[in-house]
């Protein structure tokens, strides 16, 4: 078994930046485009994903010795679907307004490739504690991506954040149209790529100089 050697802090940071599920791994794009039009949506869906990821990771890593390898994938799906149903029921009961804004996406967490992927590559090989931190990292990474998108779109679209008016005008109404999500994700991915290119160039220069 390939037990991870990374520290817990590293696991979280990986999920946030170098393995960010939205901008780097390009998984679970649907909510990133569909409902990232406000910061609040991003935070709430982020919490839901964090919850599902952490609980599924822990469950699988606890049960990993009892799961027969041939029914691995169905078991993952069952575990994820159970936790998704739980969070779906809880959100529908206690935050009905926000739940309505997120619509079908809460239920669709079950189809997010990111969660199954983390279970397959990490949780089923590692003990509970690293799996927990890996789940936290991926969940917060997703939330970070959603909040970034939400901030850009809400500020440009409505001139405010979290529903509070900041500058009094609406700079670019276009950005709260749902389809602007495509453009936003494209631009932010390009920025990530640019940073990577510049970083590599600097590294190369430094190695030549040495």
């Amino acid at each position, binding site marked *: 078994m390939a037990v991870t050697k990374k520290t817990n802090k590293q696991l979280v940071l990986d999920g946030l930046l170098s393995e960010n599920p939205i901008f780097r791994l390009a998984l679970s794009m649907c909510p990133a485009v569909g409902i990232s039009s406000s910061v609040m949506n991003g935070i709430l869906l982020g919490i839901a994903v964090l919850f599902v990821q952490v609980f599924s990771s822990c469950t699988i890593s606890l049960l990993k010795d009892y799961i*027969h390898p041939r029914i691995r994938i169905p078991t993952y799906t*069952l575990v994820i679907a159970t936790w998704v149903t739980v969070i779906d029921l809880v959100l529908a009961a206690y935050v009905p307004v926000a739940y309505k804004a997120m619509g079908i996406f809460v239920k669709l967490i079950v189809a997010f490739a990111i969660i199954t992927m983390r279970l397959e590559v990490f949780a089923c090989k590692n003990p509970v504690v690293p799996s927990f931190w890996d789940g936290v990292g991926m969940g917060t990474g997703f939330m970070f991506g959603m909040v970034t998108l939400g901030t850009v779109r809400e500020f440009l679209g409505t001139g405010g954040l979290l529903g509070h008016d900041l500058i009094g005008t609406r700079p670019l109404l276009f950005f709260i149209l749902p389809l602007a999500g495509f453009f936003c994700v494209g631009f932010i991915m390009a920025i990530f790529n640019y940073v990577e290119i510049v970083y590599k160039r600097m590294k190369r220069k430094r190695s030549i100089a040495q």
Partner: protein
Amino acid sequence: MKQIIRITIGLVISCLVAGAVMGGVFTVTDKAKKRNEHLAVQETMLGLLGYKDAKQVPADLKLYSIYRYIITDGSGSQYLGYLVPVAEGNETGYVLLKLDLQGKFISKKNIDISPEKAREAPERESALKAVLKPPISFRYADEAIVATLGKKRLAYLLPGEFLGFKTTIKAMLALDPSFGIVGLDILEHEEDPGLGGEIEQEYFKNQFKDKSYDRITKLKVIKEPLPDEYKKYLEKSKWQKGAFSKEQIATIRKKYQDKDIYAITGATISSKAVTDGVKGMIRKFAYRMGKLEAVIVNEKIPAVFL
């Protein structure tokens, strides 16, 4: 073979555990969900009546629901069945008033159900089934809420839905006893944000306020820019203290009271859909309430809102 049995048993156990977890969460959250939904509806209603938060609500404000059913008897002819709250001593009970399609009184039956239980559709259905036995069948049509303040009838609240530009729009209307509009709230819609989605903004929905019943029957949508002072007046939640004096409010209100509805820029169809929907809702309700009220008075039904 042994392996397969192990796998099957493992899967069955995990399914059972998962089912138990979900069932447990469901039983816990179901009650909370219903309560919160009820509270949200109540808040919308009180907001429409002008009470911003729960503290302002007077103690003798009461909300009573009237449920309308369509009853079909064995020969296929249809009747209207109104489930009307009545005073029984200090308690509130319900009677079923059966009216023919022209609004003539047919019969009256006591229904054994409390107002709390009447909120739940399945409970009402089973209570009605005890009175309306096959071959008589019935189906639920709509609900109207009467708000009373002390002995006085304050307003009617109508939940309803109509077709918008894209899909149906759900709305709630508050009417005064003579069917003029007190307020309009858009509850659910799927119009485009920034365009048709603006129907939920105050500067659109507050335009319906203060229109009298006669004015509503002839209400139209006009494609003119919304005057600045009127827009400021409509956006009540953005008012700063002392922005408008009492006289100013009265003059603006009088000036625009008889105006048609100013269309939202870029969303004339959505604006028209809301206007027509509201008109239709009020026309039907006023007609039915007139008939029902006549029956209640003639038959001396001790309805709670009289």
